[in-house]
Each structure stands twice: as structure tokens, then as C-alpha cells.
């Protein structure tokens, strides 16, 4: 049933979304503060389940696009995403009945909440990535036949660009990316206009609630001096994701990163406390593959997140630092993200990784840590 977002759920959701962001998607704190500012001024956010949508309702997805490291420095002015939504509505001659996250991981779990508050429409408890991904064609909406176009892209100066590449979502991504770089590496978009029926068919359901659930489980475990990681594993178990495991407890010994073509790309190397093999994680905005020595232990689209060892708080790729004591968690993905057509879009090959995709539950069952 529909519910009104509370301040506590906002905090929990941001914490859980950071873990589901797999190191990317932007720092949710910036988004959380923006939503909190909206709540402080008396605005409200209504969250509805996808099942509550009418088939002929009209839904537009909203998001931030660009390098996470830009968003913590060049802060939003708060009007950008609503501006994109309004411009797209005007172009299509139809107002949206609801907005929906394209990505439930990181900052992009929060942006649609801000849009919902400011535009006075509900936000749907679902998304198109089930985590965070670096590119706009990497959405279940597109995988299962919806066009991302037309898309509107805005910056803090109020500049807008309309991109319409028909059914070609890859080209839409490249055009929008080029504009985003010109806009300073971060922009705000409205995209994938679709019906309620389409969203129910192609979206990953209840992912905002899963983020809230993970955040709440960790918070409550810490308050009770229980193991927050065990609480995280339990929260995932009760969802369509189903499986979470620890890849490493250890220390960061190297971080390499650069901004390449609008992405924060790089590699982090971790040494386990038990003097076992080093773990390396490659990231491209998000963590994409974890290897113990040469052996793949988790690979995209399964989730890989670096957590602060004590608090179980996610550490985004831009916040990784030499010397941090961490745990690395891997989480399996739901079936809708693992079909052949989905893996063609976001399997290892889409990230230039030659290794085949193997479910993380198999990789970690075959090769127990240590």
C-alpha cells in the first residue's frame, strides 16, 4: 500500500541504497540532504507499490547522470531533475502520474524522491537496474523493449537538451553522455516514458523497500550490539535477491582512479587480515569484478560492495582510501536481471571483462574464502 516517506525511512533507505549502489550511483548523502531539505519545507513524498499503478498510468523515470566524484563537489541546485521532467512532459503533451527510479543504488534512489516531493506526484517502489549501473541502456526497461527516448537532460544553469534516438537506447546513452561531459560531468535526466503496464512488466519490484529494509536491519543490529553484517545477509535472504556473502575482511592497500570519458574508473587492492591472497576490485563508477588472485569470485551484474568493517556502511568508489579496514560483500541478483537478453546488456563482456558470467552463489560455493 502507498505510504508516506518518514525521516527515519529516508535515512534507512539512503544507507541501504548505498550498499545496493555497489560502490557507485553517487553518494546518497547528497541526495538524502536534498530530500530532507524538501521535507523540512513541508513537502511530502508518497511511495506506491508497482501493483498500485493503473495499466494506463503514465510514468517517467528521473535520475542524475554522470561521475559520482563530481556530484559531491558540484552540488545540485535542486531544480535540475524536476526541470527535465517538466520539459519532457511538455514535449510529450502529457503529465506524469508518477516517477520511478531508473536505479535504486546510491544517489539515484533519492533523486526521484526529490522529484516526487517537488512535482507532487508519487514515486513507484521499483527500478530499472536493481543496483547501480554506469549506462542508460542498462535498464530492465530497455532490456525488455521500452525506448529510453525521448530523454531530457538538464544542468544547474537551466540548460536543457532533448535527445530522441528512437528505439536505439545505446545511441541515446552516448549522446546524453557527451552532453553530460559538456555540462561538467554531472546532469539530471528524465527518460523512459512508459505506461503503468510497461513498468509492471519490465521493472524490478520493491527495490526501494529492499534498500530501506537493509538500512533498517543494519541500524537495528548495531543498536542491539548484534552483528550488522549478519543482519544484512538476513535482509537480503528475505528478498528476491536471496543470497549475500562476505568476500574479504581486510585493509585497502592501493586505490587507483581517474576520470575517463565521464566515468570514475579504477581499481582497488585489498589485503585480507589472515594473510591470504589479495583481492582486487575493478570499478567503472560501480564495482564490476572482484578477483582473488587471478580467480573471479564475483562479477557484474551480481553486486559487489565495500563496507566499513565496524559499521557495515557502504564506502563508495570515490571515498575508498588507503588504509581503510573493510569487508567486501557480494549479493546475487534476481532472475529478471540474469536472463540471456539482460546479460547481453550488462554481463561481464559489456564491461570489457573476458571471463564468463557465473552466479556469485556458485563462484563462492566452489571456492570458499581462504
Amino acid at each position, binding site marked *: 500500500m502507498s505510504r508516506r516517506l518518514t525521516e527515519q525511512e529516508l535515512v534507512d533507505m539512503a544507507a541501504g541504497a548505498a550498499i545496493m549502489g555497489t560502490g557507485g550511483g553517487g553518494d546518497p548523502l547528497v541526495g538524502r540532504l*536534498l530530500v530532507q531539505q524538501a521535507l523540512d519545507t513541508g513537502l511530502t513524498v508518497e511511495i506506491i507499490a508497482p501493483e498500485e499503478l493503473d495499466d494506463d498510468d503514465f510514468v517517467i523515470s528521473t535520475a542524475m547522470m554522470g561521475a559520482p566524484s563530481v556530484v*559531491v*563537489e558540484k*552540488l545540485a541546485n535542486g*531544480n535540475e531533475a524536476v526541470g527535465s521532467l517538466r520539459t519532457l512532459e511538455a514535449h510529450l503533451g502529457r503529465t506524469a502520474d508518477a516517477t520511478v527510479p531508473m536505479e535504486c543504488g546510491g544517489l539515484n534512489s533519492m533523486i526521484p524522491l526529490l522529484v516526487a516531493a517537488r512535482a507532487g506526484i508519487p514515486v513507484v517502489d521499483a527500478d530499472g537496474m536493481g543496483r547501480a549501473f554506469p549506462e542508460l541502456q542498462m535498464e530492465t526497461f530497455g532490456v525488455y523493449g521500452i525506448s529510453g527516448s525521448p530523454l531530457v537532460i538538464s544542468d544547474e544553469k537551466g540548460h536543457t537538451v532533448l535527445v530522441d534516438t528512437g528505439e536505439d537506447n545505446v545511441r541515446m546513452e552516448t549522446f546524453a553522455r557527451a552532453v553530460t561531459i559538456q555540462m561538467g560531468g554531472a546532469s539530471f535526466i528524465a527518460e523512459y516514458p512508459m505506461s503503468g503496464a510497461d513498468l509492471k512488466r519490465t521493472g524490478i519490484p520493491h527495490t526501494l523497500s529492499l534498500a530501506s529494509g537493509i538500512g533498517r536491519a543494519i541500524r537495528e543490529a548495531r543498536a542491539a550490539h548484534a552483528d550488522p553484517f549478519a543482519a544484512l545477509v538476513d535482509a537480503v535472504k528475505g528478498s528476491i535477491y536471496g543470497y549475500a556473502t562476505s568476500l574479504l575482511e581486510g585493509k585497502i592497500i592501493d586505490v587507483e582512479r581517474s576520470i575517463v570519458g565521464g566515468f570514475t574508473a579504477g581499481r582497488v587492492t585489498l589485503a585480507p587480515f589472515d594473510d591470504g591472497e589479495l583481492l582486487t576490485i575493478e570499478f567503472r563508477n560501480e564495482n564490476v569484478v572482484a578477483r582473488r588472485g587471478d580467480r573471479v569470485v564475483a562479477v557484474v551484474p551480481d553486486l559487489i560492495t565495500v563496507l566499513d568493517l565496524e559499521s557495515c556502511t557502504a*564506502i563508495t568508489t570515490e571515498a575508498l582510501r*588507503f588504509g581503510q579496514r573493510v569487508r567486501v560483500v557480494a549479493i546475487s541478483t534476481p532472475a529478471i536481471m540474469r536472463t540471456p537478453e539482460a546479460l547481453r546488456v550488462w554481463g561481464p563482456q559489456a564491461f570489457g571483462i573476458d571471463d564468463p558470467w557465473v552466479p556469485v552463489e556458485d563462484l563462492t560455493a566452489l571456492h570458499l574464502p581462504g
Partner: protein
Amino acid sequence: MIIGIDVGGTNTDAVILDDGVVVAATKTTTTPDVTSGITAAVDRLREMSGADVSAASAVMIGTTHFVNALVEAQRLSPTAVIRLGLPAGAGLPPLVGWPARIVAAIAGQAFMVHGGHEFDGRKISDLRPTELLDAVDKALANGAESIAISSIYSPVNAEFELVAEDLIARKYPDVPVTLSHQIGRLGLLERENAAVINAALRALARDISAALTSAIRNLGIAAPLFVSQNDGTVMDLDFTRRYPVNTFASGPTNSMRGAAFLSGLTECVVVDVGGTTTDVGMLQSGYPREAALETEVEGIRTNFRMPDVLSVGLGGGSRVRAGADGVTVGPDSVGYRIGTEALVFGGQTLTATDVAVAAGLADIGDASLVADVPGGTVDAALEQIRLILANTVDRMRTSTDPVDVVAVGGGSILVPAELAGAREVHRPANFAVANAIGAAIAQVGGEVDRIFGVPAGQREQVLDTAKQEAVDKAIAAGAAPSSIKIVEIDEVPLAYLPGNAVRVRVKAVGDLPMGRSAATNALPDRGVRT
């Protein structure tokens, strides 16, 4: 011979360390003027040891004065923050999320004007000098006495912050200006917050630096004066005046490093009970465990590197109240007035120290003055103290295994001999002056902060070069080569410069060989501030 002094909110401690040996140690109460407490402490050292203090090679001072000013929301300058970056950032203005009481204490004013850079060095907007100076005029007219400037992407391009500083200095040469790129790293809100805190402390830093200098010189000591920084290294007074915020975590750092030195333990929980608060931290491999994520100071998000320390309002000066609902201890304290307000010193206020004396745990002041305190009140207060400490130690533990606990600080008489969750409670010799010892064994550092061109595939070589430079600088500053550790590596890609330019910051720190004169040591090189 090195003199280490710790100026806390309640006590001023001093030690003489010669060749790694504690020659003399003393504890006095902090005085409102700071200086007479220092003079009294050093005079006492002279009497105790007969040492010629004027022969000291260095005086190392650790002080919690600046962080206490923020915690107490007192002695802060009215401060304005001007952010350069419009039209970006307006959704989250400066001071967003700050506790209202701190904003009130600094009479905080926030302005946003045009300026700022993109990640690739392009301008977001041109800086508009008139708009900037209008904001300054308004801020000063409204009472601001110190100004913090932040500009979007200033760690990549500091041009606008430097221009703003210059414009303000021409019009208002006496107004202190703090620039965010000299305080913190990427992450606008955290860097800006740290700059605002620094700005609010500038007037206090000027006064304290002058007081420290006159106190030491009047004692006939000509040796150079250094102030402890967050990372266990030191800075000179000129730097202290400009960057007081660098002292924020030095108290816990000094006490934990002092505890390691005194106990010989390298893995333990350190409980440092001062006059006003108790700081609990974790020592791992002899170094304070660092907070892995962003650190909050009084509810303000910053990105300093800080030891992971939990503070509770329990200390020797904590007020003890017996009421209908039972007995409470703290969180408020009589602070440095303990010498006049505590019962054992002839005062009228029941404090935690009075309870300890009444229970026979300590021999301080005149025990006959607490003879009338009801036994039930004493027992209840001690139980309350035990609960507070056990809970705090428990929160720092990372497993259910018992841990060694090292109790230090002047108020550590309050730590019971047995504590839930503790394998053993250690109370090393000179436990009461661990902070001053931590200050005296200050490390020296070498820092590299400059722009390197990184040819494809040569990142490792470039980083090795930077690390070696930092190590060489630490050795030049006097660090024993075998003790040097790289404590910080930070890379900021500068996409707008050709040749894959990266701003690399590396910091190496090491121990001074014991007994070696620090007077001849160069200060850590602060490196290029771009």
C-alpha cells in the same frame, strides 16, 4: 631534553623527557588565561627534577583548547561563509545540517555567489568581484569577524579562492580569511565545513599562540615551540594561527600514543579520563584506529582523518547530583574551576573527584571535607560511573572477546579495577600525564603535495617517486628511517591538464630518535598549495 605540555580544558600536564625516559611529570589545573597554568607546571618540573629547563631542545604543546571551544560553543568568532559556485549548489547552501546552537554561536552567515570550476578546470561562472565584495560588506556589517571562502572544485583549481582572498585583503586587510582548499580535500560540504570551523577559531588561535609564546619565553626557554596536529606530527605557531583546526584530534592522538609508550601494549582500548570528558579509542599495532568514514565533529560533517574515538561527558570534574530519581554523574563539569569548586578543595560542588576521595580511591585535596557525603550517594555514583565506562568500552569493541584496557588521564582514578568486557585494566606509571607524553614524543612528517604528469602505465613509478620524496623529507625533518610509515596517499586527477596530470598528496611520518634535539629539525614541508 624535550618538554611536553598538554593544555586540557581542566588540567595542564607537563613532562620532561630525556633520552626516552620520563624525568619529571606534573599536573596542575588549567587557568583561564592558559599561561599561568603552563608557568606553574614548568616551574614545578624544574623544582622536581632540578633540570635546567632553559636547555630544552624543544617544547611540544598539545591542546584541546580549540576543539573545546567548538564543543562548548564559546570563544568562537562571528563567521561568514561565502561559497563561489552559483548557479550550482543552491539546493544545499553552506551550513546545511549544522546544529542550530553552533550556527548561533558563530553567528553563522552563509552567502552564495558566482564562481567555481568544473572538474576539468572550466569555469562554472566567472567570479564577480562586486557581488563577492557586496557579500563581504554585508557579512561584516552584520557582525562577521572572520570569513571562510569555498569554491567548487578548488582542490583542482584554487584560482577563485585566491582571487577572493586578495580582493578581501585589499579592502579589509585585518579580516582573517580561511580558504577551503588549504583545509580539506574534494567533497565540497565537508571541506567547506572544516573551513568554517577553522575561520571561527582564528581569533582564538591568535590569542592562544601569543599566550603560549609569552609563557614559554618568560620561563627563560628559547627553544622552538611546536603544537600537536591530528596525525601525531607537529606544526609551528605561525601555522597554528592560520590552521587551528589541525589540532582538533590531537588530544586523543596524543593520549593514545602516550598510552602505547607507557604501557608497552600495542593492541588495547585506551580510556582517557580528563576533567570534563572521557575519550575511548582503540590502539591497533600501536597506532590509533582511524575513523574509516566521514567524521562528525559536534554533528558537523568533515573529512579530517581522525582517530575513531568515542567521547562521553564523564571526568574528574563531572557534577554529581543526588535527587529523587537517583544519582547522576555529568555530563556537565566544573572544568578548570575544580581547584576551587570541588568539595575536597573547599568548594561547594559535589564532583566525581569528591566521590573517588570519599570512597578512598584517591588521595586528593582534603578528605575530611567529604566526610559528610552520604555513603549511599558515593556508592550510587561509583556504580553510575562503572556503567558509563563499561558501555563506552563495549561500543568500541569489535568482537565479543575481552580486551585489554589502559586507563590514562588525570581522572582515571574513576576507572574501576574490574570492568565488564575488559581482560585487564592497566594503569601504567605516569598514567595521569599520558597526553603530555604523547605530545613530547611527537612524530615528524614529510609531505608531498604537487602535480605529477603520469605517462600511461607508469602510475606505480610516479607514486613510488612521490612516496620516496615524502620519506626523504621525513628523514630530513629528523625521523628515524626505520620508523617511517606512509600514512596518507591521495590522488586527484586533473583532467584539464595535458599528459594525464594528477595531484598527488603523500604524507610520511616517523619517530624522532629519543633524546635527539628537535631544535635543528626542519618543520614538515607543507608542500605546494595549488
